[in-house]
């Protein structure tokens, strides 16, 4: 028997793969464990030794979470809030970014500077004053309260990223439209937005996922159980049913699946968005 000796280059690749596989296993194992638990009856979730693949899988946790524990409604609330926020935040920040990228006017630098303040202030610092403001505006306990504050919170970063993108669009294209008599709104709508699809997709994805996952603000302003979004519903449910891990994780899987779907479909925009944000910043 002769030992197989790999060439050096191949050995290096093999070593890389082994290390990466080990790392990937650490990343995935908790999720696999969550998925397995969500298919186990309550009596078996803390069984020793644990079963990575349940011997008696059941979907009872999923039906229980979706119907009798109202997670269908929470899912719908989350969809409404995340979609509403995404549409509003992307539109408003694209308009602002267009203003900053293409017009010169008194106060522009000041407005842009103030926007950067919004990038630097930790959101949690604003929790108390924002709560008092929402109370004054009668936005406590309402999905509107979530949409309005999520939208406002996403504007600074989105505008910043979109402005960088708009600045790079050749001015000649717009000038050609001016010659044809197109006003600013038409140029924005017909030229800038269609040319910026990759950038718009990036900010839309980040905004959607951010509002889909948001926890603290929703926890703070929502009291009415029928207005809960998925993150607070899951956390509160776990607090009340400390041992129903199967149900908790079935609800978690329901909340995580759309995120993973969005991530899988738009992975490229994701990575490029992160990278440009970081490398330019």
């Amino acid at each position, binding site marked *: 028997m002769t030992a197989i000796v790999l060439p050096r280059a191949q050995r290096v*690749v093999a070593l*890389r*793969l082994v*290390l990466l596989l080990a*790392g*990937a296993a650490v*990343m995935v194992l*908790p*999720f696999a*464990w*969550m998925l397995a638990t969500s298919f186990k009856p309550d009596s078996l*979730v*803390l*069984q*020793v030794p*644990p079963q990575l693949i349940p011997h008696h899988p059941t979907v009872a946790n999923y039906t229980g979470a979706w119907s009798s524990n109202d997670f269908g409604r929470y899912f719908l609330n989350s969809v409404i809030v995340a979609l509403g926020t995404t549409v509003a935040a992307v539109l*408003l*920040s694209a*308009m*602002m970014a267009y*203003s900053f990228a*293409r*017009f010169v*006017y008194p106060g*522009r630098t000041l*407005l842009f500077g*103030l926007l950067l*303040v*919004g990038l630097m202030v*930790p959101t*949690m610092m*604003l*929790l*108390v*004053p*924002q709560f*008092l*403001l929402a109370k004054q505006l009668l936005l406590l306990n309402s999905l509107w309260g979530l949409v*309005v504050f999520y939208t*406002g*919170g996403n*504007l600074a970063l989105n505008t910043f990223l979109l402005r960088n993108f708009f600045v790079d669009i050749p001015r000649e294209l717009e000038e050609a439209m001016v010659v044809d008599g197109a006003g*600013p*709104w038409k140029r924005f709508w017909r030229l800038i937005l269609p040319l910026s699809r990759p950038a718009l997709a990036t900010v839309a994805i980040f905004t959607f996922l951010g509002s889909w*996952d948001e*926890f*603290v603000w929703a926890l703070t302003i929502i009291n009415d159980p029928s207005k809960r979004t998925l993150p607070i519903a*899951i*956390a509160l449910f*776990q607090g009340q049913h400390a041992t129903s891990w199967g149900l*908790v*994780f079935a609800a978690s899987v329901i909340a*995580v699946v759309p*995120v*993973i779907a969005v991530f899988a479909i738009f992975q490229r925009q994701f*990575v490029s968005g*992160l*990278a440009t944000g970081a*490398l330019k*910043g």
Partner: protein
Amino acid sequence: MLWAYAFAAPGFVLFALVILYPVARAFQISLYNWSIVPGSASTWLGLHNYGRALHDPIFWRSLVNTGFYMAVTTPAQIVLGLGAAVLLDARIPARGLFRALFYLPVVTSWVVVSLLFRYLFMTDGGLVNWLTGQHVDWLGGRWTALATISILGVWKGIGWSMVIFLAALQGVPVELKEAAIVDGAGPWARFRAVSLPAIRPVVAFVTIMLVIGGFNVFTSVFLITGGGPLDETQVLLTYMYRQAFTFLDFGYGASLSFILTLIVFVLSLAQLRLFRRPGEGTA
């Protein structure tokens, strides 16, 4: 020109209302014994709430705990994220898949992964104790609980730093690496002499972001220990939240979050100075 204002106005008005106005209010509220009951007056306290924090042992403990979390998770995420990026910065099979798997925890909500880690680190029937053959009461003591929370932070954050480091490494000019090979430099020497200096600004960016993120730790602590047992694992933001929304002491809560913001701001400035290349000027 009117168009310019028309485009900026709707977004900026909303931004001013829900971000800028609260920024200004945050400091003001911290100077009062704020009353949330309509009709009853808030009393002016000046800097009393800040003095109160300085004499509050739980504030100091939460500061130490927050600092511990930051000090553990920042270097770990940099080293492991950079390591993963270096491993992926080559022609290897299933590269996109690996990148996606490392990134999976980043896109998953803090709520879900916090509950998941609470389950994994349970004393009886938890996967971690079973795999390691131990019987550790992870969440029962201050340091083991903070360790659990830090492990979660690192696990969730590696993918983020990895993606950014990977983008930066791919931007390192190939000619530089080839020149180093011609000079006979081994892989480690090449990494030290070529890649690391080239991605230095990105390392600085990631470090600053991680320090800021570390000081802002909240959801994981809130859901895994709730600051307990007996406030042993409070961090600044969970303690702030408790003061503001459990005890309804908004003035004290606001001053705690203002202190946090100041600390983060000063640390960020200090790091910007630290990371500045020697000879780049001091202005």
